[in-house]
């Protein structure tokens, strides 16, 4: 049942219960933190790209247990933090409650958390503005047992060149955390209670069952669906529009399962990427590879499969991989459930086959090789101006099934960044079937690939470069998987 709307929501910040009323549920956590005088958390970009606003939040990890998770507070709406426990750099100092910390005595070295001491020791802060964000990324990684480069990949520092921060991470990686934060984690719950909140004439619903989502959509046909808010959060951070009704899919049971059988993998639409990263490792090499390059830790902790597909960006990272894997989507709506190939889902620039009142339930990926196939080759590539945490210029994912005589039985070439939608090079695929997996075949398919797409020139790269990559990446695939 959908709850009646409440005018108050609660959460804890550094262990302190906080009650929020009269604020828009779309206000970002960062904005709230700073408005309420908690100035230790900084805004570096408001885009979720620099990590200066990183806080830690307790949430379910890939193992289902509670974990500290680093998230960008500039992208999380208040509605999404209701009932959660949030931690900031001021709050992990021994024996202090942050709002008081502002006036009395300065913090001393002895009071620092181990990740904070390490950063002091190595010279990990220069201007110090990005530092609270690094601290919270390291804090979360510390209790997960792997503080390393990857845990701070989503934090930009313009001063240090990162070397002392890397040394700090290495220092704390040797410690075994045993303190109030690790104890707190054991006791924490990851269950997200249902929520219905209204403030500043905006409503935020967090139902726990799919039928409630459908009912809410029926009541509010213009409602906006939100899950991790890593994309929609940008609009909120920049106050680009109002959201009279937001429906969060984050707590919906039916959207959170991940099923792995001999025949297929089914991923619920609200499963965050970090869960896929951990729980499906080694199942689909091209998926592993792409997730490695997919944004940074803070975003992977929040971003969902359904969101990455539903937003239908031509430069989304998952669609090329899922296209190459012949994924199908399960949708549900007022007229029932239906299944469609992902390839049919994208109908135009940022347009999908989703009908009014319909939601993405899951994506299903078949595992079986083509009959008679002796081996499968699959890989994905993402090219950006910066290797790490960039939006792709071109992304590509390839899959070929070969028979015992090395002939191609099945080929899938999925691309992003080369058309208005993520797309397959279907002519090239058809050409390849039946041909031997040789340099000669690759040379022969090149003209088809060259003309497969008519990409645009934009700030990330020229049309010529994109066209070249469409061809070159496939050749690279051949060279790497002869």
């Amino acid at each position: 049942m959908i709850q009646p709307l409440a005018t108050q929501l609660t959460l804890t910040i550094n262990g302190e219960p906080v009650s929020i009323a009269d604020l828009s549920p779309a206000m970002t956590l960062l904005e709230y933190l700073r408005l309420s005088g908690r100035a230790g958390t900084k805004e570096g970009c408001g885009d979720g790209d620099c990590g200066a606003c990183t806080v830690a939040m307790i949430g379910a990890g890939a193992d289902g247990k509670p974990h500290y998770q680093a998230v960008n507070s500039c992208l999380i709406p208040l509605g999404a933090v209701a009932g959660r426990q949030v931690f900031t750099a001021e709050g992990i100092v021994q024996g202090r409650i942050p709002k008081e910390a502002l006036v009395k005595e300065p913090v001393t070295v002895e009071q620092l958390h181990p990740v904070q001491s390490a950063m002091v020791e190595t010279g990990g802060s220069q201007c110090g503005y990005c530092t609270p964000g690094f601290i919270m990324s390291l804090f979360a990684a510390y209790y997960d047992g792997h503080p390393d480069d990857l845990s701070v990949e989503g934090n930009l520092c313009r001063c240090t060149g990162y070397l002392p921060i890397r040394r700090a991470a290495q220092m704390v990686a040797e410690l075994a955390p045993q303190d109030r934060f690790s104890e707190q984690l054991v006791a924490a719950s990851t269950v997200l209670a249902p929520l219905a909140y209204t403030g500043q004439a905006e409503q935020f619903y967090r139902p726990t069952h799919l039928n409630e989502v459908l009912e809410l959509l029926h009541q509010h046909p213009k409602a906006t669906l939100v899950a991790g808010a890593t994309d929609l959060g940008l609009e909120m951070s920049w106050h680009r529009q109002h959201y009279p009704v937001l429906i969060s899919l984050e707590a919906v049971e039916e959207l959170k399962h991940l099923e792995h059988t001999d025949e297929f993998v089914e991923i619920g639409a609200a499963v965050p990427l970090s869960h896929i990263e951990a729980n499906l490792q080694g199942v689909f090499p091209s998926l592993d590879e792409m997730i490695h390059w997919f944004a940074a830790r803070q975003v992977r902790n929040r971003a969902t499969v359904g969101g990455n597909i539903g937003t239908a960006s031509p430069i989304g990272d998952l669609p090329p991989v899922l296209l190459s894997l012949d994924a199908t989507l399960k949708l549900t709506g007022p007229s029932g459930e239906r299944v469609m190939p992902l390839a049919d889902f994208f109908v135009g620039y940022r347009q999908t086959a989703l009908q009014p009142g319909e939601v993405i339930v899951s994506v299903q990926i078949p595992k079986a090789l083509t009959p008679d196939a002796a081996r499968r080759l699959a890989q994905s590539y993402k090219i950006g101006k910066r290797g790490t945490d960039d939006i792709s210029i071109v992304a590509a994912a390839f899959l070929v099934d070969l028979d015992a005589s090395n002939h191609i039985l099945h080929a899938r070439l999925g691309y992003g960044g080369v058309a208005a939608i993520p797309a397959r090079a279907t002519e090239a695929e058809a050409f390849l079937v039946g041909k031997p997996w040789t340099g000669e075949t690759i040379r022969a398919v090149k003209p088809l690939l060259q003309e497969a797409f008519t990409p645009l020139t934009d700030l990330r790269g020229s049309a010529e470069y994109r066209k070249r990559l469409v061809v070159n990446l496939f050749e690279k695939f051949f060279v790497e998987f002869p």
Partner: protein
Amino acid sequence: MSPVGQRKSHESAVAHVSGTAVYTDDQREPAGMLSLYPVLSPHPRARITELDPAPAAGVQGCITVLTAADVPGENNTGVILRDEVLLPTDEVSYFGQVVAWAVGETEAAAREAAAQVVVKYEPLPAIKTVKEAIAADSFHNEPQIIRRGDPDAALSQAELTCSGEVDIGGQDHFYLETQTSWVVPDGEGNFQVYASTQHPSETQIIVARILGVPRNRVVCTCLRMGGAFGGKESQANPFAAAAALATYKTGRPARVRLRRHQDMLITGKRHGFLGQYEVGFTRAGQITALNAKLFADGGWSMDLSPPVLMRAMLHVDNAYYIPNLVVEGRIAKTNRVSNTAYRGFGGPQGMIVIEDVVDRIARTLKLPPEVVRERNFYSGQGETSTTHYGQEIVDNRMARVWQEAKERSDYGPRQAEIAAFNATSPYRKRGLAITPVKFGISFNKVQYNQAGALVLIYTDGSIQLNHGGTEMGQGLHTKMIQVAAKALGVKVERIRMMPTSTDKVPNTSATAASSGSDLNGQAVRDACEILRDRLAAVAVRMLNLDAPEDMVFEDDWIYCRTYPSARISFDEVVQQTYSERISLSATGFYRTPNIFWDAKLAKGRPFYYFAYGTAVSEVEVDGFTGTFKLRQVDIVHDVGESLNPLVDKGQIEGGFVQGMGWLTMEELVWDQEGRLRTFAPSTYKIPTISEVPEHFTIHLLERAAQDGVIYGSKAVGEPPFMLAMSVREAIRAAVAAFGDADYVPLGLPATPEATLWAIEGVREASSQGQPVGVS
């Protein structure tokens, strides 16, 4: 143990990591503070046909809208020329220019009010690139020329010549803390400005100019900055001025805090440059003549472009002796952001040109680039050790630093390994490169080479330290505490560093040009030594001795050098000094000696000394995509006798990575309409931790004390930035390995796309040209 030379963490490190360090916008808000939000120009150039703020008044919480008509003083924030309006009257000159500021009770109210301000434009033809400016003869200044020898004759007699062009991109500072200013009125006509500024005195000047009040009614205080890199030298001023204008008009405290997109759209950046050259050289690779032209993209107003251009011209030699040289420089006037100071201040752009030239010579002659570099180093004495602007290089450490870097990086053997790798790897190539840096230290403008300090000792023996420098993360305050602790012989814990403020130390220079420690350190020492002398006179009497010059101040004790058991605590002496009615505060002052510049002749001794460094970088480049991976970096750098090795290494690491970003991924893209398209970290990419290799070593040159500088140390802020040229040259070496071309042009920045085109160029030009891809 002397507090100087110790590896000490940043004096604010504990506050940084615990989120308790207070930046301008983190302060407790004064009652009734207003927020400003800008209205930005959507055109690179246009006539304003209508500017109607009235609709904004309908927004709840909107207090007012500031336009040019509100400026009581002079509507100009120009720092060298008065050519920069705070708010435009009839024309906008770049995309993103602030046309008006909405003022609201809250930021939300100001934002909504700004959206209601009606501005109508009639677009005018704009000058969108340096090349368009050259074609239209649109410049901020007359050509500047530095000449040595007879370059024309030497070029015509040269054994070999070649010419070329280098298009150098700009760079956004991307300090993590955007531009921020608070202004609080005291109710008696005075204005307290809190600004994230590298140059509080200039911010004070500009605020006073805008308000039309004498400077003594404006105090500018900088608590600390969340990064600056030159971007808050002059660029902080307009935002402080806008907040002050709001305060002036409303009588209430007011704040400007730019959001990231606004900051990147509105503020000036590193100058893009167009370099053109003709070089003459011998078959042995000796440069005999260089004719270089440098066009800086000044943007819409002059800002600091003249000294930036001059520093580029003064560094077009990098570390090389060029007997006949003419360099001509000019500042293009374009309809873009007004480009400004940025770490290196033109030096990097000048050096890029000569490094391109050197590589060109090496490949033409089929010589290893490092051999050509070595053959052209300044050396010996007199002519061959004198720059094109007539400054003799004394204490030339280039060869020493270079040799040490070669040895420490195992350069020779690795080169052989890489050649072997490349021979068997058709699609991935590795490149190794070594590049030098020689960077002149001092402000080009002689008058800026001065500094002041104010040291206050209280009767409990605690000390407040003030100096004219600002803290932007570079560790200046940390070093100044160390200097004061050494000069006064006290423990560092005794000293509290005060925020930089124009009511403590007036008429200061910008904290810039790597000179913060050199200048302020000497001023701090001067003040401390004045106080020490006063205390010594008292201590001598207290100890019943008679030679104050024999008093040693160390570790909170004062004792006699020849009779150490006669000692007395610092606290006791301070108490007694007060009792004897002797002042416990002192100002200190410093001016750099023996520097001069004759602008007419373009000759002189503009630099007090030079900083030297060498970097060796190795990369691997993918022939299908043009992407690269930095595999290893080894640096040897000369910081003199380091005041603080932790801080100095931090500057070197950070400068290098920032330079690498500029040269390989940070690309400013303007569209055909002249609009900047890269104004967010989603589109403008600075390095992350994953671009920094595991193997990254830094060695500080040993036994390197520098005469005449504070405790033998050397400036370190800017020089390491240019060590990153080794990454660009390593990429070029890898690109070159895809063929055997005798010319390997490489775009700036060397993005994957630029690198892939460079590889294709090499393949096409090569005699044994390999076709692209699978063969």
